[in-house]
């Protein structure tokens, strides 16, 4: 028994500490992402944004958090209570689980598993359950419509995301996220992957239900979509889960296309900056794209969204997989 403690006890304690650090960082990042979103959008719309709580409004996210904590949780009487409360917890837990395999810097990863990228795809494909369960359990038409829209949308865009990931995996020859970052990519391969980066960026907007693909919560049509009936902490969990998924998708883009923790464009002179800073900067750049497109683009119509996913992205990415693998074989560049 003592042996068990010395073997697993220290390991468990260390892992729990790492998990604590990662969750703390992610939640802080989520809080300040909401602040950044409001500030960036207000700057784009020539407004001030939050500015009264703390210097430059920097304490606004904390004030919002306290407000949501102190509110009353309302459960509709006709709702299926267990599923109703389970849905936001599931979404939030999944959004945090994904961070287990993200490498922040060389060797800075909680679980360095061989199939890291598949793990991320699996987690993001399960996020849809949080939304469907919430919509169904609320027992309200608006919520149910939002859930149906969201499910169809997430399933459709997952297909093209999966094919893009296949392209990247063909180039790198590994499903391990650290290897994906570190494998050297010739310049023509990088140019080949550029169109896929564009499609991937659009797909992650749809996958995280963000504007211009935020139909599941379209205020003007179905009031608030699947979140209509939620209040207080349950709502906060949805909110945190959604923003954490946004940061996770940005980190995934960084790892797949932007070179993770390596300095940009392979400039050796910039290697003195710690890798985690590059990782954070690149992720923040993708997050800026999220906010930018929300402030710029009007919402899609639902059939246009489906057409884009199935009739444009799916054939394009499928053809690109064939093209990339053909070129890799022709130029003998298979890893």
């Amino acid at each position, binding site marked *: 028994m003592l042996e*068990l403690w010395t073997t*697993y006890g220290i390991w468990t304690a260390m892992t729990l500490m790492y998990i604590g650090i990662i969750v703390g960082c992610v939640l802080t990042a989520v809080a300040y992402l909401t602040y950044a979103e409001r500030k960036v959008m207000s700057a784009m719309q020539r407004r001030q944004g939050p500015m009264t709580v703390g210097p430059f409004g920097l304490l606004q996210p904390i004030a919002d958090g306290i407000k949501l904590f102190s509110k009353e949780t309302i459960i509709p009487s006709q709702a*299926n209570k267990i*599923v109703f409360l389970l849905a936001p917890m599931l979404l939030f837990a999944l959004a945090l689980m994904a961070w287990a395999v993200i490498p922040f810097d060389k060797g800075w990863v909680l679980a360095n*598993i*061989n*199939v890291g990228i*598949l*793990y991320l*795809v*699996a987690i993001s*494909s*399960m996020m*849809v*359950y949080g939304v*469907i*369960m919430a919509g*169904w359990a609320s027992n309200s038409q608006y919520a*149910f419509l939002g859930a*149906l829209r969201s*499910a169809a949308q997430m*399933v459709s865009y*997952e297909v093209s995301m999966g094919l893009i990931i296949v392209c990247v995996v063909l180039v790198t020859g590994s*499903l391990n996220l650290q290897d994906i970052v570190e494998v050297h990519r010739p310049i023509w391969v990088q140019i080949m992957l550029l169109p896929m980066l564009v499609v991937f960026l659009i797909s992650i907007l749809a996958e995280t239900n963000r504007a211009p693909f935020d139909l599941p919560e379209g205020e003007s049509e179905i009031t608030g979509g699947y979140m209509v009936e939620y209040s207080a902490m349950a709502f906060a969990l949805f909110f945190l889960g959604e923003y954490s998924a946004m940061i996770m998708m940005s980190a995934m883009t960084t790892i797949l296309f932007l070179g993770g923790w390596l300095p940009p464009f392979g400039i050796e002179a910039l290697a003195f900056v710690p890798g985690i800073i590059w990782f954070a900067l690149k992720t923040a750049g993708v997050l800026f794209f999220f906010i930018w497109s929300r402030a710029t683009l009007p919402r899609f119509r639902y*059939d246009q969204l489906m*057409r884009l996913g199935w009739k444009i992205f799916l054939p394009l990415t499928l053809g690109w997989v064939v093209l990339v693998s053909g070129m890799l074989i022709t130029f003998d560049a298979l890893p």
Partner: protein
Amino acid sequence: MVVQALAFYLFASILVLSAFFVITARNPVHSVLFLILSFFNAAGLFVLLGAEFIALTLVIVYVGAVAVLFLFVVMMLDISFADLRKGAMQYVPMGLVIGAIILTELVMLFGAWQFAPGAGQNLAVPVVELVDVTNTEALGQVLYTNYVLAFQVAGLILFIAMIGAIVLTHRRRPGIRRQVVSKQQAVRGEDVIEIRKVTTGTGA
């Protein structure tokens, strides 16, 4: 080893329990949710076996795609639970027969392993030792190099089944206006707008 055994019993017991609730839950949506839980625990068991690729494929394909569609359909159905209960007993003999057949097959399979050690040699072993490569690579070797013909034929059969399903269910409904994006894009200002000079007082 203790931890692995504990994890096995945890996954296995949740798997069996949730599979039990799939068939006993009163609400069909709860049944599907329990089904998802059991898929998930089966994936956990695969991870314990060291088959991480199969585990994650199980989650992506079954939990992420198949069960979503199940849930979709079950939620859309307008189900009256009383009607559902009424006819349930008539299916019991059929269910028992199918269950008995599957149980017999499992027992025979297990018996073959036990009593005829030679049966194990018919198994397809990974061509490369798993020590050298990850099990994703070993699977790829088996599927795409050693058994590529069988794999492609299976893919072709699935493809034909898919086309068949689409042909059977697709119907062209008359009287529906479809959006043709290329046509919309090709419209020019001159085709749809006519600018006329109208003098004051003469326009109608």
